């Protein structure tokens, strides 16, 4: 009967390493957030002092608000622009338009390219002096359209959003596509016999069938939006670009924790409080979406 208990031995290594490096740190972050601590030396308990600083300090609060605003604007773009585009792309590929298998592959391709290389591509294309885009526009005598691109705070955020979208759009697309393939052939054929045109068929049959998959894509995209780091950091730099146009909560966190103020006064404790705020926002959004979307799913 020894074998009855052997599941423990199978699970234990994974359980331990996962608990120590993924779960316990979450609690430690909460603990550190109540202290003023440079990472070495004495910890001083300051209660909610760090959180007050994030929300009310005249220097820090505006930076925080700008960063979190960018996260939410990006999330809105992901949900209301990228996901519809992903559905459309998946539908075109599902319909097997000419070249569909090639399109699927190449649209997905940027996802396997490292962010540093995608960042390099962005610099190559958008650099104001040697960038492809300005060179191209000049060669067409469209000098008036040239721009400093990422150097222009008004454009930088949307360009960055586009670059992030270019890298990641294939993931949602293939998830939605896989679910479209699960739509029973009879249902589609019945609607054709009933004389439903393509437009009606898409809205009445295909889209409702995709609801569970879309819920997952919405939640995954939102978490991804709220944890943006790589491309903003690589393209905009640790300070989040001119006027903080490309600043995000994770960059804000990184700057205070590992950045210049690395050996500063309150770096670790303060950084921990930022990550607690970020974590709470993600948790809140995830739970909110889960309940709201599940309600919509079960209503009809």
């Amino acid at each position, binding site marked *: 009967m020894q*074998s009855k208990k*052997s*599941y*423990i*031995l*199978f*699970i234990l*290594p*994974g359980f331990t*390493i*996962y608990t120590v*490096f*993924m*779960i316990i*740190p*979450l609690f430690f*972050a909460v603990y550190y957030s109540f202290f003023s601590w440079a990472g070495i030396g004495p910890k001083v308990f300051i209660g909610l002092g760090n959180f007050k600083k994030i929300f009310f300090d005249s220097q820090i609060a505006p930076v925080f608000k700008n960063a979190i605003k960018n996260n939410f604007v990006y999330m809105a773009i992901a949900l209301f622009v990228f996901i519809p585009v992903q559905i459309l792309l998946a539908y*075109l590929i599902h319909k097997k*338009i*000419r*070249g569909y298998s090639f*399109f699927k592959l*190449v*649209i*997905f*391709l*940027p996802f*396997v*390219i*490292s*962010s*540093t*290389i995608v*960042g*390099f*591509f962005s*610099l*190559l*294309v958008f*650099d104001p002096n*040697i960038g*492809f885009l300005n*060179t191209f526009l000049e060669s067409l005598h469209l000098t008036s359209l040239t721009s400093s691109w990422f150097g222009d705070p008004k454009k930088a955020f949307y360009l960055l959003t586009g670059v992030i979208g*270019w890298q990641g759009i294939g993931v949602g697309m*293939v*998830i939605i596509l*896989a679910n479209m393939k699960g739509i029973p052939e009879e249902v589609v054929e019945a609607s054709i016999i009933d004389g439903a045109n393509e437009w009606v068929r898409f809205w009445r049959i295909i889209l409702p069938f995709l609801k569970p998959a879309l819920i*997952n894509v919405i939640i995954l995209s939102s*978490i991804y939006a709220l*944890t943006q*780091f790589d491309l903003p*950091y690589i393209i905009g730099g640790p300070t989040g670009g001119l006027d903080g146009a490309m600043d995000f909560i994770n960059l804000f966190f990184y700057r205070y*924790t*590992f950045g210049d103020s690395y050996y500063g006064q309150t770096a*670790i404790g303060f*950084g*921990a409080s930022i*990550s607690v705020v*970020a*974590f709470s926002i993600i948790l809140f959004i995830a739970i909110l979406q889960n309940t709201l979307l599940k309600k919509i799913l079960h209503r009809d």
Partner: protein
Amino acid sequence: MRIKKKQGPLGWAATILLALYCLIAIFLIGNLILSSFKTKMDLVYNTFGFPKSFTLGNYYKVLITDDFIRYFYNSIVITSLSIISLLAVSSMAAYGIARYKFKGKSIVEMYFLLGLMFPIQIAILPIFIILRNMHLLNTYSGMILLYTANLAFPVFIFSQFFRDLPKALHESALMDGAGEFRIFSQIMMPLSRPVIFTVALISFVQIWNDFYLPLVFLTKRSIRTVTLGIYHYLSNFLAYWNYVFAAASIALVPIIIIFFIFSDQIIAGLVTGSLKE
């Protein structure tokens, strides 16, 4: 609808638009690789064409003078050992969860799934302190531990697979007197080869390309990964741009080759991992 329909004008418009969109990626990657063989002069005056004089000078400078051969080695060691350790630990955990009945099983399952919701970045600071106290900053072992701990996704994929295996397989092996670990290593593992392969591919893409963990935990020059090496060039982009082409090609070509051979498995694996219902 098995009949092959003729494509209407709207369909052709979509085909053309998507073809143009796909040109962006093809152009950027093609240009990257071609440019890596150009001299700096050639790059300036002949930005888009084929190299006028084919040179390996950029690769020599990047690999030998700037030590990318070292970074490449670091990337290979970290990626391969992490994948092996991740596969071992996550397949065992998934097997334990999926094949046995015990009290609190669903709680354990949920517990592992939590990691799918929360990216490792959220807990990075306490992880940093734990690794520092263990003297594992700037080490291979530290990185391998972290990539192994990030096991929610592989555990999820493996447990789906093990759950669907027939119970009789396990029982008949037990009758034959095989021990639990022998059943696991000699029957279950060979059977799960396709899943192992899928998990290995996806982990390869993620770990090879990872930027955040190396940025935080690998601050010493000698232990940099390729992605980190490229990043340090980028911080002085205009001075080094001819070298970045070579450095980026070194990082990109292995991934592109693997992607084009195994794209079906990579995509199918990602899709499986996203369906939690």
